[in-house]
């Protein structure tokens, strides 16, 4: 018995719809996503209603609940922080420092870095907050 292979249909037009959907998804994720370096530990920023929109740019200092530090996603020691900030300031004099501290972090692990940044010459320091209640 001779079985003949059915003729292959030409590429269907519905693939255009698939491309459209993928393209829309791509644009959607490109627009709403922020590509910040994430800290190597959990940081849940404190909640506040009066926060303003956070502009992009600058460096982010993440502070964990136990006081661990990360600068732009890389863990950093207290000693190395000053060096890193100084070199960043040399490249960008109007550097913005964003301090993203966990809401349970004790203030003795946060406020000294604001003072240190000010002493190094950083004039724009902001605290990261979230308007959302997530309990």
């Amino acid at each position: 018995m001779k079985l003949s292979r059915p003729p292959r249909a030409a590429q269907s037009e519905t693939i255009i719809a698939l491309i459209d959907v993928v393209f829309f998804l791509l644009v959607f994720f490109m627009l709403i996503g922020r590509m910040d370096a994430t800290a190597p530990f959990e940081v849940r920023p404190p909640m506040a209603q009066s926060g303003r929109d956070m502009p992009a740019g600058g460096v982010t200092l993440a502070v964990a609940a136990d006081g661990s530090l990360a600068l732009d996603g890389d863990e950093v020691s207290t000693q190395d922080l000053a060096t890193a900030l100084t070199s960043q300031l040399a490249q960008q004099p109007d550097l913005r420092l964003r301090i993203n501290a966990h809401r349970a972090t004790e203030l003795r692990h946060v406020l000294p870095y604001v003072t240190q940044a000010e002493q190094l010459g950083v004039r724009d320091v902001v605290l990261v907050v979230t308007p959302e209640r997530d309990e």
Partner: protein
Amino acid sequence: MNLKRQAQPRALISLVPMIDVMLILLVFFMVTSTYLNLDMIPALRPDTDSVATTVSAQPEGSIMIRIGADGHAVLRGRQLGADAVTDHLTTEIAREPLIQVLILPSGAAPMQALISVMDSAALAGVQRLRVLRLEASQ
């Protein structure tokens, strides 16, 4: 003599590589993006300083809010919640719009406690806010 032009094959652009690239980009953006709703509160501004300055002489027309190690705000000896702090500061602002609010937090207080008081002050319309930090003497 009959010369017949050879039929040219129809040019075909394969869509498969394009779809592959788009899917890879899509997965990349889905994986690397973060979707936290983040805002900011200024701690230091280019023109003024507001947070973590050492204690200096208090100007007239100031009000001090202490934050204990347990995170509770204490205003004039009374422990107040966030709403009560906002109400109190709103009353003070109505009386004296340029009153300076000083926040003296304990080093053991959580970050959320400081942000809550700063938030209350901002909601009450406080223009002059300072966070004090006591430093050990050398």
